């Protein structure tokens, strides 16, 4: 178990709602939910989630910490915003879903190998390095995330599309060698560090 997870458990004991209010973006809204069910019924992905937002909010209030944070559900959110526009209590549901996912990730208890989580992680690493997304490296990283053999299989399967993109000049093979970047790469890194510092403060991680 990660240290941050142990610390959080020790500090909040059974009060998971308080923990969410303190550390999850827009978490203070969770108590406003009146359990009407509109978000659950409005979500286009609804039938494929293990727990709907409505249920997650109730689980948070019921102190089901493990089940919520290790759940795959909030990673399923596609940010369509259907729930936000319809919630009669105006809860920023989409943001809370992302906030929960982020918090679980931070504590190291988000589900391993969850595809959305993996994409998000790879995307961020790729982007933060130079300040520009290197699409070629990003795609390759995606292909090879489940091992070398699977990576080759994936690459072969996508070969046609790759060649098509190259012909249409949407994919540059030279990107593999370094690739384009922002002029002031160090500036970007400083900016990200500052943003992180602000967020740590806001979400009470320091």
């Amino acid at each position, binding site marked *: 178990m990660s240290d941050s997870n142990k610390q959080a458990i020790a500090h909040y004991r059974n009060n998971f709602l308080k923990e969410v209010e303190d550390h999850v973006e827009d978490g203070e809204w969770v108590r406003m939910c009146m359990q009407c*069910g*509109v978000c659950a*019924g409005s979500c286009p992905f609804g039938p494929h989630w293990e727990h*709907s937002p409505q249920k997650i909010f109730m689980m948070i209030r019921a102190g089901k910490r493990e089940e919520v944070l290790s759940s795959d559900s909030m990673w399923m959110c596609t940010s369509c915003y259907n729930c936000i526009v319809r919630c009669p209590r105006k809860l920023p549901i989409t943001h809370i879903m992302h906030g929960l996912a982020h918090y679980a990730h931070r504590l190291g208890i988000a589900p391993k190998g969850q595809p959305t989580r993996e994409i998000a992680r790879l995307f961020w690493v790729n982007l933060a390095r130079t300040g520009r997304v290197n699409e070629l490296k990003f795609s390759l990283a995606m292909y090879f995330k489940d091992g070398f053999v699977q990576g080759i299989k994936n690459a072969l399967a996508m070969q046609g599309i790759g060649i098509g993109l190259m012909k249409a000049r949407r994919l540059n093979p030279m990107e593999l060698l370094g690739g384009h970047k922002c002029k002031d790469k160090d500036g970007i890194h400083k900016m990200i560090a500052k943003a992180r510092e602000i967020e740590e403060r806001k979400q009470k991680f320091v």
Partner: protein
Amino acid sequence: MSPSIATNQTILVVGGGISGMTAALEAAECGKQVILVERNATLGGRTALMNRYFPKMCHPTCGLEINLRRLKGNRNVRVMTMAEVSSVTGQRGDYTVTLKLAPRYVNANCTACGDCAAAVDAEISNPYEYGLSKTRVAYLPHAMAYPMHYVLDPSIIGTADAGKAKAACKYDAIDLDMQTETVELKVGAIVWATGWKPYDAAKIQPYGYDRFANVITSLEFERLADPHGPTGGKLLRPSDGKEAKNIAFIQCAGSRDENHLRHCSRICCMATLKQTHYVREAYGESGKSTVYYIDIRVIDRLEDFYQKVQQDATVSFVKSKVAKIVEGKDGNPVLHGVDTEGYHRYATAHDLVVLAVGMEPETNGIKLPEDMLLDSSGFIESSQDEGMFGAGAATSPLDVNRSVQSATAAALRAIQVVHKTAAAEGAK
């Protein structure tokens, strides 16, 4: 009526529903001079358009008839219909009110024989049936109308029907030359008993009130259940005129919702419970009512009404705010959502959906005198100087019982104002 009759010791009551009638009568029976103005062609307000009344399931006729009898027997109240307040100036004890009187084209000679209606051909959508049926351009608002006089719809003017109606009337009651008039009154106190209006159901986009024929409002359902209504009391659904036996009621349609009305409309839970009685009465054991709700909110002693409905095996309750409606086979609305007791996903077809629409103040959207105090939903409290008061559903979503109590209280406060005015005048 000549304006000089009103003085600053007169009480003006705006709105002739159950609350306005009550406030006017309470004050008049204490000897005060009262003017009761109603925008429609008849008194009665929304109460007259209901089939039955909770909690006793009586007919609206009873309550209205008692009030109409009191009204006829009292010389202190002057009733003006088709009259709307267009401006109020002045202050407590000394108001000047401008009224706009719309032409009725029928005078007090009318005996309600109905010959004019029989003579005309053109039809309009019936304003007293929420457009569920048509009526001739010469019509009686409804069976309980007061005054019991016919009305000509303004569209008749300049058509052949106008001449036909006039020729048919044996009592010389039709006056096609009537014009819109403006009248000014001096009054001491004003009671706003302007009532409520249903929230516009079409704004609740996922329910498709404007797209699906078989999604109707609770007010329309009252008309379907009424033996004097457009279907003679049969619960026939709009799309194909077939009997609707499997009926869904959706609570909080537009209420308790930051995107629509913020407040709980308080009446709609009771109204739905009442309406499940209509289904049971129509079909016995073979009808089915399903109530989709967030929580059932019935007020204090009305709880036993709820318990009785819960015992009815033909009524079931689903704790869930319906997320959306789509139109399925044969025009059957299919309700989609997730219930809160177990988080089960459902997609359930019904013959007909009744939206328990919220109540908002009728005065939303019109210009009220500036010093009026309103709550966050627009319901009227009083004027800052306490010379104008709200009464009944204009002040909050109230049932008839509570509306009447509120109207009596408003009458007392208005009496106090004109008393003080009288005392001040006497001292001069």
